[in-house]
């Protein structure tokens, strides 16, 4: 099996030895030059991470003082980028509040206004496009999402023979996305909202693979938000502009709902199909709906995720 050995080399002269050593050095130098040059695109890296952001502590470990500093850093960065001084707050969950969303499938006409109101409220990237709500046009009689059409466009909706089902983060009581995050960058707050610390996420997209509702979005590049459409009312865990390479998702408009207001998708709905409120308050409209209406659908109930987002019918 052993191949025949090549004949022994000529006796190597000193001159040729040193020439070879020189050439080894030259090749090594060439290699190092190419190595340095291969990193040339990195010169375009703009504000990838300031040292302040790089060293920032985990959200739950930030003291109030730290948070003040973080907020002023974010305000500074937003002003520099968009020329608008935002109002960033770190809104905490309220006591005795647990949010529930109810969506009336009888009413929804599939106009997609909620989709765009959400984008506008939550400073999502317009290019490439990030949207938290996906409206499915479904043939009458089926709840099989695979039969849904995501890209319908019509001069007149609703179209005959179809119903429309908007899907967004279901704010699960048992969220699979939270369980899988390797760095605890996403968690469920006590008012039921699953939030993301955009400054802690490492962008592995495991949560995106884990979500049975396809509710999570990734910033594949630097988000693009036109200055004139920037919403300056911001929250740390909410709609402040995101960075390239991190996850985001619907957070029930934390910057509005934790200040007592309705979410943006609800306010824009022309048919009142969307209902939101505190399920712990028996007087709230969602408590009323849960009491009075008959059929609720928790999407993919068999997943055991227990969504706080209920689909219902009223006729």
């Amino acid at each position, binding site marked *: 099996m052993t191949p025949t050995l*090549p004949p022994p080399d*000529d006796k190597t002269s000193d001159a040729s030895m040193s020439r*070879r050593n020189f*050439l080894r050095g*030259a*090749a090594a*130098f*060439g*290699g190092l*030059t*190419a190595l*340095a*040059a291969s990193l*040339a695109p990195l*010169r375009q890296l703009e504000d990838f991470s300031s040292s302040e952001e790089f060293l920032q502590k985990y959200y739950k470990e930030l003291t109030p003082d730290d948070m003040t500093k973080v907020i002023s850093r974010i305000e500074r960065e937003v002003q520099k980028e968009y020329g608008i001084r935002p109002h960033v707050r770190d809104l905490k969950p*309220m006591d005795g509040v647990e949010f529930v969303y109810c969506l009336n499938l009888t009413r929804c*006409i599939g*106009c*997609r*206004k909620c*989709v*765009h*109101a959400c984008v*506008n409220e939550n400073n999502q990237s*317009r*290019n*490439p*496009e990030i949207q938290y709500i*996906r409206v499915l046009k*479904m043939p009458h009689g089926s709840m099989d999402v*695979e*039969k*849904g*059409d*995501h*890209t*319908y*466009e019509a001069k*007149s909706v609703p179209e005959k023979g179809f119903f429309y089902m908007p899907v967004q983060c279901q704010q699960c009581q048992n969220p699979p996305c939270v369980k899988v995050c390797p760095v605890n960058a996403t968690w469920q707050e006590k008012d039921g909202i699953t939030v993301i610390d955009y400054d802690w996420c490492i962008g592995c997209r495991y949560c995106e693979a884990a979500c049975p509702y396809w509710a999570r979005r990734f910033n594949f*590049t630097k988000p693009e938000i036109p200055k004139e*459409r920037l919403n300056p009312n911001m929250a740390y865990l909410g709609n402040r502009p995101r960075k390239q390479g991190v996850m985001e998702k619907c957070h029930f408009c934390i910057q509005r709902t934790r*200040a*007592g*207001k*309705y979410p943006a998708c*609800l*306010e*824009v*709905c*022309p*048919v*009142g199909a969307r*209902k*939101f409120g*505190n399920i712990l308050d028996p007087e*709230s*409209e969602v408590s*009323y*709906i849960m009491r009075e209406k008959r059929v609720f659908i928790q999407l993919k109930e068999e997943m055991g995720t227990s969504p706080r987002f209920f689909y219902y019918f*009223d006729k």
Partner: protein
Amino acid sequence: MSKNTVTQYWLGALTVVFLGLGGFFIVTSAAHPATGKKIPLVDVKFLDRTASRRTYADLVKAGEDLSDYDCYGCHEKGKPPPIRYDADHKIIVPKEHSDVVMGHGSHDRNNLCYNCHNEQNLLTLQVRDGHEVGFDNIPQLCGSCHGPNLRDWEAGAHGRTSGYWNHSLGAADRLSCANCHNPHAPRIPTRESAPAPHSLHGPAGTTTPHESTH
């Protein structure tokens, strides 16, 4: 050629290749490897949150022109206007009221103006049992037939809301029936859908509804 010389040639060649590669990296360093597509900004009409209709109460509140409600500017008091029907028993809308499109109830069955308007006093409305109701109290009128809807509306479960869910922090702004429904043709009109989503690279992905999954 001795093996040593061959090695030297290879080392020399490698140096040249490495330097060439370095040059290539520098030259192409500014190129963007992904060609982005341009997505137009969504038309602001799709972001509009105002109610689709304005009610009598809205006009009063805004202090605007109420001449449309000045019925006795044309009609004569104490003399209810007659209602005429065509051969199909459809109401003939007089040309003075050409803005009214009749379409309340299926099969045009609800086609008597005095089901809601008060024939004795055109400035008010009347519920089914004859009670008089003002133009500013439309839910009571509608609810006299649509009881469950009134109940839902009162609980906040029917109709549009905005403002505050938390009433200790602010008021909820609840729209009235006629803010969304045209009382003469209450079915919500169809509308244009806002633009469909764009996927990152290709079409956003759609499955055509198919007869069976199996």
